[in-house]
């Protein structure tokens, strides 16, 4: 049994909060760069250039890429032979978020009571935490500060088996079309197919953790991703909705087995500021 101190986890989470909010990954940057080269709309091209410039400034000045520093979504893969000592795992993560957001001068965007008082917690806690127990003795932490604009455009459709692949495509394309300029396109479109309602939604979010534009390892799923991206980029929405051929940078699809009666499809949109950071402790 390997011991991992709660304090190590807190420090890692704080560091990941700062890194994710100020450093756009090379994967997203190179996709934005190639989109700028391909974009046929002059205004769209100009906007893509401004987004790249913004990412450069954020990194150089350690400023948050976006004023919406998101809900902190934390994905934990906890090795079954690891043992957290010196504190409570959840409290350690919350403290990491609190420290990281204070240190980075990031916005607190979380309200405690969602439907009446809506009092801001002030430190962007609590995060949303998904934990999976896996083989091994390490803890992998993947952190996704998820902006509200993209998250609000999420969609869940409980399709029937007869509706099949074609209706999946229509559902995803419609979700992106209805979202228009709201989720800050060009987006990364996360799609979850299968499982249950909750599982499909989680798959759609997990899909966003892949390097931007990396295809699924399953050829049939990769083919669906390519077809969806092609269809979405025909919509004409373009960067920030200002018109163009770059509405999405990538479509990532994750699948899971499902019930004989079911075909759940979930869509979770990630804005162009695809902020993901990870650490193993």
């Amino acid at each position, binding site marked *: 049994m390997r011991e991992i101190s709660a304090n190590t986890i807190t420090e890692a989470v704080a560091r990941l909060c700062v890194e994710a909010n100020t450093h756009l990954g090379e994967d997203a940057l190179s996709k934005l760069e190639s989109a700028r080269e391909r974009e046929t709309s002059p205004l769209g091209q100009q906007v893509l250039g401004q987004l790249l410039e913004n990412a450069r400034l954020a990194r150089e000045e350690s400023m948050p890429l976006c*004023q*919406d520093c998101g809900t902190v979504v934390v994905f934990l893969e906890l090795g079954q032979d690891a043992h957290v000592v010196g504190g409570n795992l959840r409290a350690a993560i919350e403290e990491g978020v609190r420290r990281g957001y204070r240190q980075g*001068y990031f916005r607190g965007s979380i309200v405690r009571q969602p439907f009446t008082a809506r009092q801001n917690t002030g430190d962007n806690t609590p995060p949303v935490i998904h934990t999976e127990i896996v083989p091994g003795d390490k803890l992998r932490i993947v952190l996704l500060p998820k902006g509200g604009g993209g998250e609000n455009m999420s969609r869940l459709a409980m399709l029937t088996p007869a509706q099949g692949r074609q209706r999946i495509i229509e559902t995803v394309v419609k979700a992106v079309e209805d979202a228009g300029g709201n989720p800050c396109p060009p987006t990364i479109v996360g799609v979850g197919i299968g499982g249950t309602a909750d599982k499909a939604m989680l798959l759609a979010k997990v899909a966003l953790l892949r390097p931007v534009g990396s295809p699924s390892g399953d050829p049939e799923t990769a083919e669906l991703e390519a077809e969806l991206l092609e*269809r979405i980029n025909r919509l004409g929405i*373009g960067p*920030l*909705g200002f018109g163009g051929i770059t509405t999405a940078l990538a479509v990532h699809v994750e699948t899971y087995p499902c019930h004989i009666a079911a075909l759940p499809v979930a869509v979770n949109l990630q804005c162009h*500021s695809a902020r993901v950071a990870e650490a193993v402790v």
Partner: protein
Amino acid sequence: MATLNIVSPFAEDVVARLHAGDQVSISGVVYAARDAAHKRLVEALAHPDKSGLPFDIRGQTIYYVGPTPAKPGEVIGSAGPTTSSRMDPYTPRLLEAGLRATIGKGGRSAAVREALVRHKALYLATIAGAGVLLSRRIRRAELVAYGELGPEAILRLEVEDFPAIVINDIYGADWFQMAKAQYARPAS
């Protein structure tokens, strides 16, 4: 594409001259307000004497933004736009009270688009997700009201060469619809 330099608050003749798709560079004063502040503004307008309004919104411009905290020595933190459609339920009432322009991101409801025409007001969009870039166009920021709302407080911002695109003009045109139609390629 030529960029027009305009001063906020916008004069009536300036508003009349602008059309959907025009790129503008805004200097002057805009007020930062988003969800929670809008709820309070509309509640204040419901009072018979409107005494609760924290600033005279007649002719003014509201920028839908909740910035990050300013670092020591800085004017403001990252300050890009938030999704405008969340303010749709409140906007017609504010336009009726004299608001002349709003700046945000994403499209507006049919009710807001109608109200923009009726009250001769503009809706503009700026560079969403470019919070650092836009923060550099803000020269001064001061608290006007609702400080307890934290990032949702109303601020008075002095901007210089702040970039935006006219989305909805006073003649009923919608740049998002026009641009989409221009670049859409139906599946073969």
